[in-house]
């Protein structure tokens, strides 16, 4: 029999009251952990959707300059500015397409055929050649082949010309440069002659060493924007960082909402503990008179709060796992995000916060119990 044991017995003496206090902590832990998991899963989902790993610069014509296109010469200048790093210019447009009897619209990306392997992975088939009339289709277009008729070998009619699908792309996800999953990728040479265009919409620069990103960006800006702003250079790493900072903020906000419920639970623990102290004033007087020190009385009450907190945290942690599964499966659409260590950490965090809240709520009642005058406490009826 120790103070810990005594505290445990005190908690079970008023089991209904203790259970209700524990339920408060359980709800708080679930709220914090689940909302944290949800926010984190949104971030993870976003991370999965974007393909860029922060090694990409996207160069666009500055607003109102050169009719919104980059010329071949400007692309050459950019190529010189970036040294050995990879430069991939592209143009894009949306157009009507038809496959057999089926008609629809699609996004077209025009990329020099030689640059395609550097930017895109072909899942089946091959890359088109500059000289041929071949094209690639995005993974989602291919997945919806039944509806749109697009599949490997299909003939796609764009305007008065027909292209043959020579390859299907691997799923690439959302990117800051191009999003080919729902698009058709054609050789730039075909695009240029078909639409009678000789400019590019944007230039993608793949930087070999991420550490050189800033230097390469500066080099492009120095070369291109010497007199006036001809191009704007978008740093995907910076965009990614701000996007992830935004998802972090969402997570913190959601957890803040959860924390409110835990604070309410803390107030409930405070109330339960104060009631416990009031009911046991005489008992505390007896304990003090037979040699229990103030610090020991305090410890006994803190242990009680700790018990309530631990029970709430363990039950809440287990239920958070279930609730997290439901939230990630239903709201985010992928329950796998729950098993990511960064998500599981929110369960640990919620449990820890539950225990800390409970113990913090027990501090004042414990202090109050310890400060009781033993003579007055003994007289208490």
């Amino acid at each position, binding site marked *: *029999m120790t103070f810990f044991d005594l505290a445990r017995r005190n908690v079970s003496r008023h089991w209904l009251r203790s259970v209700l206090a524990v339920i408060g902590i359980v709800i708080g832990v679930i709220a914090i952990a689940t909302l944290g998991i949800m926010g984190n899963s949104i971030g993870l989902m976003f991370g999965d959707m974007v393909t860029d790993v922060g090694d990409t610069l996207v160069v666009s014509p500055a607003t109102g300059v050169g009719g919104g296109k980059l010329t071949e010469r400007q692309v050459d200048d950019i190529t010189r500015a970036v040294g050995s790093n990879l430069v991939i210019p592209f143009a894009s447009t949306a157009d009507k397409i038809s496959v057999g009897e089926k008609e629809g619209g699609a996004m077209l990306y025009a990329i020099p055929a030689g640059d395609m392997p550097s930017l895109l992975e072909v899942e089946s088939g091959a890359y088109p050649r500059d000289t041929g009339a071949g094209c690639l289709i995005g993974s989602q277009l291919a997945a919806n082949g039944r509806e749109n008729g697009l599949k490997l070998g299909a003939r796609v009619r764009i305007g008065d010309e027909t292209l043959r699908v020579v390859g299907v792309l691997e799923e690439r996800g959302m990117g800051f440069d191009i999003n080919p999953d729902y698009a058709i990728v054609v050789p730039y040479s075909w695009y240029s002659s078909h639409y009678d265009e000789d400019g590019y919409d944007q230039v993608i620069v793949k930087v070999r060493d991420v550490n050189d990103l800033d230097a390469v960006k500066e080099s492009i800006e120095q070369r291109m924007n010497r007199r006036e702003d001809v191009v704007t250079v978008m740093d995907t790493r910076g965009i990614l960082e701000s996007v992830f900072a935004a998802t972090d903020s969402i997570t913190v906000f959601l957890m803040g909402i959860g924390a409110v419920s835990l604070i309410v639970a803390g107030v409930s623990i405070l109330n339960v503990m104060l009631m416990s102290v009031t009911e046991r004033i005489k008992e505390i007087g007896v304990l003090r008179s037979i040699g*229990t020190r103030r610090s020991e009385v305090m410890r006994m009450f803190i242990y009680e709060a700790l018990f309530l907190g631990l029970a709430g945290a363990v039950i809440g942690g287990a239920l958070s796992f279930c609730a997290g599964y439901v939230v990630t499966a239903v709201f985010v659409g992928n329950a796998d995000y729950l098993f990511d260590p960064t998500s599981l950490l929110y369960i640990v965090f919620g449990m820890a916060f539950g225990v800390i809240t409970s113990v913090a709520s027990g501090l004042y009642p414990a202090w109050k119990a310890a400060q009781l005058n033993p003579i007055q406490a003994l007289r208490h009826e």
Partner: protein
Amino acid sequence: MPVISFEHVSKVYPLPAGDVVALDAVDIAIEAGEFILVMGPSGSGKSTLLNIMGSLDVPTSGEVTIAGNRISGMDDDDLTLLRRDHIGFVFQQFNLIPLLSVVENVEYPLILKARQNGSRERAEEVLEAVGIAETHFSHKPGELSGGQQQRVAIARALANDPDFLLCDEPTGNLDSKTGTAIMDLLDRMNREEGKTVVMVTHDPRMTEYADRTIRLVDGRVA
């Protein structure tokens, strides 16, 4: 050397209506092995005397020595340890801890002192000495009669082998037959074990057990 020594001890409670003198220059010396009764009318200062003897309170002036320790200048922790190690309390209302079994109630002060478990044997030994059958060891205090509860309370007071027992009307809540049995037990502890007993009572029949009686009137020893 006396177990309890009061030298010119006064206790004054400052109240808005004026100071109340509970003890007024009291001199007392209680030697080891004595059985002392403290008697006096209500408001005579018996409770204050008992509280100071039990190191639950400190005097306003004068010198109090408990088991060789001067209590002036002691902080709350020192006074608590003095109670734990040298004083055994027996209350009128038994004041056992309802959460703990009979044997755990007796074991509690032993654990406080030893800071570990393993005091069960000593607790059982003391319980047997005060006449509690082993079958009652695991019972909760509420399952025992008043007389049995008071025996357990005496066992708890004796557990740490204190220098003296401080009894506050220990038979006040018991019928006369049970009260006599409890007094016989305290008498036995005093005569056979040599325990010093200080007992506050209103009952003049108790004087037959005592070596001497301290009578208090208006905070002074009469």
